[in-house]
């Protein structure tokens, strides 16, 4: 029972802070609201008993990626004068396009229906031991391929960071 209330509280908070990310005038405030949004989503993972996912979500998103975002925004020192001014037509077309996307999403999700709850659903599936066994037995190839993808991205970043390639 208490988990239902917690779910609604966390869902409300994540939507509220998600909106604050968009509506905040100051980009640094936006980033900080986004960090809080990540925390609420990590809370949802904990409610699903996926503690490993929650911890990794916090470490990777809140602890690493958002720090880099904050880093860049603080160094750029964005303010009103440097803000690029878009024309009214551009703003209008962007609003219509994103509104249409919303309509499509709502329309496609409306008839999706609820996923039936499996009778013998293993609630411990999100714990690290089960997750590791699943990843390294059933999904070994996709797991290794995604690690190669990350390695390629790292090599690319190092190459871009070099001043001159001899």
């Amino acid at each position, binding site marked *: 029972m208490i988990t239902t209330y917690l779910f609604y509280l966390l869902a409300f908070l994540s939507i509220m802070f998600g909106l604050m990310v968009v509506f905040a005038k100051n980009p640094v405030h936006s980033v900080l609201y986004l960090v809080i949004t990540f925390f609420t989503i990590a809370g949802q993972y904990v409610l699903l008993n996926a503690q490993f996912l929650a911890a990794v979500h*916090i470490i990777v998103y809140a602890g*690493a990626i958002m720090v880099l975002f904050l*880093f860049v925004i603080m160094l750029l020192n964005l303010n009103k004068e440097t803000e690029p001014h878009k024309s009214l037509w551009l703003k209008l077309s962007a609003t219509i396009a994103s509104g249409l996307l919303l309509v499509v999403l709502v329309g496609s999700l409306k008839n999706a229906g609820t996923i039936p709850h499996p009778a013998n659903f293993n609630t411990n599936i999100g714990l*690290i031991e089960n997750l590791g066994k699943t990843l390294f037995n059933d999904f070994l190839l996709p797991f290794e391929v995604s690690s190669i993808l990350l390695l390629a991205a790292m090599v690319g970043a190092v190459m871009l960071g070099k001043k001159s390639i001899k």
Partner: protein
Amino acid sequence: MTLGFLIYKIIFVLIIFAITLLVATYSTYAERKIAAFLQDRIGPDRAGPFGILQPLADAVKMFMKEEMIPSVSNRMLFIIGPGVCMLTACMTGVVIPWGPAMNIGGKVYPLQITDLNIGVLYLFGVVSLGVYGIMIGGWASNNKFSLLGAIRASSQMISYEVAMGISIIALVMTTGTLSLGQIAADQPGMHWNVFIQPLGFLIFIICAFAETNRAPFDLPECETELVGGYHTEYSSMKLGFFLFAEYINMFISSAVISTFYFGGYNMPFIARFVHDPNWLAVLGFVFLFTKISFFIFVFMWVRWTLPRFRYDQLMNLGWKILIPLSILNLLITGGWMMRSEILHFFIK
């Protein structure tokens, strides 16, 4: 979970919180005394016998000072910064096992606030959040020196987190668990992890120095270049919070180092002399604090012995020495664990 157990947990949380603050308070006194000893001075000796009341005098001074908030600063974030710093510093003590479980009247009382099965990851997550307090405070001050200090702090912490994480992975491979309670319990007697993971320990302690912004890695508050670093604009107890958070971090890092590599509450030969589990728990608590005090002393000893690094030296050490070393440590650990399979592969 009964009501009695809940009350026990709340009381235990408060006790740990009080101990954390007390140890951090007296670390400031210890730091001055050790600095004085290493520099052939006497150190604080006015407040009380041997200056034992000096931290109290410092606290009163901090509270009484004029509170200044720069008019050009971002007021809300300026106030939140030190709070976030303090919060993340205090949050890490939750998963540390302070002693083996006590057994009073047939009920088991674990001396650990919560034994998360992802304790190591929780610790790592909170440590990686620690950078926000400094960054928010430094940016909200609207001062170039503060911003530079904040950026230095965050880039330093991000760089050393990588090596720290890889050295922790090697440790987790040998222990086979992510729960700190289990890691401590798996090191009875003299079976400490430091003998299994000497290189990992060395990397971890260097990264712990960098993560707590202690000398020789205290570049974020390098006064010769940056005035006061990220807390240049802070005064009164907000400055106190920033400084105090550093001491709490030092205490918690010492506790984590003791738990990960030095057996936590375990002590060799003690099981031969003491058989009552409750006395073992009390003694374990005392042993853990002896180890923690030793590591806090090491932190201070290093601070007053080594000069500060230059910034490029710091980055070179982090990226070009510690990360390759930690990956090497990971490879050696993995190779050792798979030794029979590897031998089988080559001999066949």
